[in-house]
């Protein structure tokens, strides 16, 4: 049962690997970015889940709440920062995809590689 009891970690692992698979296997640049976001989101979950204490509440300290159990707020704060980093990465990635579309009129990696190869040959 311990195996299933850690289901929150399993969710993170499955998400992580699906995202990683999409980054590697998909040839479309936007799909790659979706995979990358999923990959990052899995790590966010990993952090959030480790800060959770069963029965814990929000860590707001008052005299009445001195006896209560709190969830660890630090991982959540860290992940807030990591989410900002993730969003910036995705935004920048999408901006590059837009520029790629303008220059190559495609966002399929194979076609871009083919065009680049021709360009390399032409310049020699």
């Amino acid at each position: 049962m311990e195996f299933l009891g850690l289901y929150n970690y399993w969710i993170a692992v499955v998400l992580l690997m699906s995202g990683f698979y999409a980054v590697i296997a998909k040839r479309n640049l936007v799909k790659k970015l979706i995979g990358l976001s999923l990959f990052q989101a899995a790590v966010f979950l990993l952090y959030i889940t480790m800060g959770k204490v069963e029965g814990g509440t929000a860590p707001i300290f008052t005299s009445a709440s001195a006896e209560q159990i709190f969830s660890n707020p630090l991982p959540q704060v860290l992940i807030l920062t990591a989410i900002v980093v993730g969003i910036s990465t995705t935004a920048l990635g999408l901006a590059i995809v837009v520029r790629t579309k303008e220059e190559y009129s495609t966002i399929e990696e194979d076609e871009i590689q083919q065009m680049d190869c021709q360009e390399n040959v032409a310049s020699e």
Partner: protein
Amino acid sequence: MSSWTPHLPALQVVVPLMTAPLAVLMPDRRLSWALATAASLCALAIAIVLVGEVRDQGNIVYEMGLWAPPYGIALGVDAMSALLLLVVTGASSFALLAAPTSLSHEVGHERQSYFYAAWLLALAGLSGILVTADAFNIFVFMEISSLSAYILIAGGPDRRALPAVFKYLVMGTIGATFYLIGVGLVYMMTGTLNLADMELRLADVGDVKPILVAAGFITVGLALKAAIFPLHVWLPNAYTFAPNVVTVFLAACATKISIYVLIRFDFFVFQGNLTAHDWQFSYFLMPLAVLGILVASTVAIFESNLKRLLAWSSVAQIGYIMLGASLVSAAGLTASMLHMFNHALAKGTAFLALSCLALSVSRLDIKNIGGVARRMPWTMAAFVVGGLSLIGVPGTAGFISKWYLISATLDMGNLAPALIAVILLGSVMAVVYVWRVVEIAYFGQGAGTITDDYIQEAPLAILIPTWIAVLLNIWFGLTPALPVELSTSAAELLMEHLR
């Protein structure tokens, strides 16, 4: 002045970070450039003062907002970070001094103020990684520097910069996320993010398996960022299609900062707490370093695009740096640190010379530069000195670190002859790829020979920073006392943490 000096570790990051938005607001691109250069030179001055302080008083610890670590975030400068602060701020300053001449050919005037802002953010991020003592801070600064590096590279004039930078973005993000997973696992087991505190608390952790997994994630993630063979595939195209001065900046310091984090994290946190970890570190990285030196040098020999040739040479030089580190000895780490410094000088100079060359030669291809040295003697002479330093000829900076590396391998017993053979073979290959360029530039005749009159020597504005870099190569080749002293104390510091 003296009341400012305690705050220098923070100012090292704050100055470029705060100047970045101002650079965007400037009404004219020349003002943006002046501001960026002033901030970068100021950062260089701070780094020089910090180096002086570290040499006088040892490690500097700065408690951010007077919150004592491990609860507050601490900044710290020791010999290792001081040495690399010199590299980062120096590379940025030299490249920025050369920037206005070189950039006007590559980046549109209206986009240049944004460009300088991204540059300053990259500088702030790279210096931030070096001064912080907090594992999560390193991640944030790493992403600040990487995101701005993607922007800088994507500014290249060739459209092939876009797929190159996309590849870099994907691989860089995977690397950073791996690092984040590793930090998360260590945090799970210790409940701290401060590197020094982590080391102490790890000693009480009963089950070291998650720590081992964390070490794996962190090593692989940072190896991706550092372009350690075979995770280097993003590097050649990113360096080739970036604007020339960006290549000068990034080639001189970006990958080295990731190597710095890799070495620091491993020695400060893991070496003292995992059984036989020196062994694991060594046997994982040494084969990769050796393969990197041999394979990348071979590719460089057959490469005809000059920038890509030097980029492949960078992959090989990262191999030397990792080879030194993978010996896990004081001598090896000294050689590794020294080579980070000296390679930055050599590669920076070589890429600066290429930036000069690019002003007159439309395509930086080996076939286009026949006899160019007759028209641009100063540019090509700078390239020759950079190349000699890259090879490791006595009298240049590159010789010193190769010498230290070879003497470090002598302690390796049975492996010593093989490792020395690899280092020497790598140097011979460097002779071959540098000589190919030099031969054609000086003696090239027949097809592709430069005959046009419009090809002339680069303007002084870019030749002067290039030649200062050239002279520094020779200066640190003849009087290597400063980098050697810093590298030695950095290596001692790292070895203290060994189990």
